[in-house]
């Protein structure tokens, strides 16, 4: 099967939060400050809600690279939010609130599909192997074919 053409990820309507594509490396400090100033909760919520697929991971984490590569290989262009070590705890709390405490503790890398917490690399792998991932991505509008 040929590799699907990557679908461009949607740009946010407001520009408060910055997104990092796999190719560019926008300094995260700027958006961290922005987050702190604006009430990070909303920002996280918005990020999650506005992107069909978003991967939230620690900076420089190799596992997040794996998730990204896997999604890219499927034809998905996921948004990626990289978290600094110092912000980690805060971000985890916010994400847990977003997911309403479902599925227990949030672990990095965390994948959100269609605005909801999907899980970590484990779940992504398992659903990919069982063939369930692609339909879910299509349903969330992350994949078109």
């Amino acid at each position, binding site marked *: 099967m040929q590799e699907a053409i990557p679908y461009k990820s949607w740009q946010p309507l407001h520009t408060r939060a910055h997104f990092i594509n796999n190719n560019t490396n926008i300094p995260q400090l700027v958006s961290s400050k922005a987050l702190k100033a604006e009430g990070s909760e909303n920002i996280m919520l918005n990020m999650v809600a506005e992107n069909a697929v978003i991967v939230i991971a620690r900076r420089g*984490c190799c*596992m997040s690279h794996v998730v990204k*590569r896997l999604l890219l290989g499927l034809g998905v262009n996921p948004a990626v939010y990289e978290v600094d070590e110092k912000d980690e705890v805060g971000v985890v709390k916010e994400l847990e609130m977003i997911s309403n405490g479902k599925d227990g503790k949030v672990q990095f890398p965390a994948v959100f599909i269609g605005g909801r917490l999907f899980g970590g690399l484990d779940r992504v792998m398992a659903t990919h192997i069982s063939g369930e991932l692609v339909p879910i991505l299509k349903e969330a509008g992350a994949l078109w074919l």
Partner: protein
Amino acid sequence: MNTTSAQFVTTRRIGVYEPIHQISTWGENFKSNSNLNTSSSLILEDTKLDNQSEDASHGTMAPSNQYDQEASKPADKVLRRLAQNREAARKSRLRKKAYVQQLETSRLKLIQLEQELERARHQGLYMAGGLDASHLGFPGTVNSGITAFEMEYGHWMEEQNKQIGDLRTALNAHISDVELRMLVENGLEHYTKFFRMKGSAASADVFYVMSGMWKTSAERFFSWIGGFRPSDLLKVLLPQLDPMTEQQLMEVYNLQQSCQQAEDALTQGMEKLTLTLAETVAAGRLVEDSYLPHVASAMDKLESLVGFVNQADHLRQEALQQMYRILTVRQAARGLLALGEYFQRLRALSSLWATRPREPA
């Protein structure tokens, strides 16, 4: 006298053994001869004859001892020879005793060494590459997880071979699907156990698991992140599962694709980790800076390696489960059997390779 000695010789040559007669003959010789020289020359002659005849002649000397004592002038040489013989016999016995004792101690030492070797082999495979571990002074704690794994793996392999044999028998015996399902589920559970063991070993020493040292050489050759590559195995298994429905074929093909994609993603992640690790270790100025902070920060990166091994094992596990979902019970049984036999063949290849005839150095 000459005739007497000639007689003596004759009787000996014929093999008639009459010690008393011979000795008395001797005695007569000595008595009748006042000239010592002559008698000694006679003895010499006798000695010569002695040497010419069979070794049994020695035996004849022993009984003669008693009779020698009767003779007033027993030949000093004879006495001396007897004494020497005694001495030689005694020394020989002593030597033999010493030799046997040496053998005993060597044997004990050998047993000890073999035991040590057995113990060391479990740790040795690990220690050979783990000299740095002993540097840090933690060989005890680090080794125990791996030693435990190696022992468990040995038991697991025995059980695995047994299960493969049972599967083979069961398939040939055409047992019911219900019973077959039990065998299949046992087999899958056994693999689950194996992955759990590997997980613990990876936490104990991820380099060890990555190196595949616990496997045979041919298995190690095909290793990918500490184990088999699911897509490769599926390619091997596919022809063994005929006949399959169209639906099944499509599903297996999709599974192969998914495995390939997942493997690629993991491989790329590993490449990134390798790069990052190299950069971390080489950070700063290699020549002038202290290595400590850089090596310490590299330690964190190494932790992620454990995650990779776990993810790879998770992938293998999921692929097995998915196959079980796709196939019928009978196909699944054949698949498990084929899988087991494939690995057995790889192991056979390893031993064949190890024992191949080589040109002498």
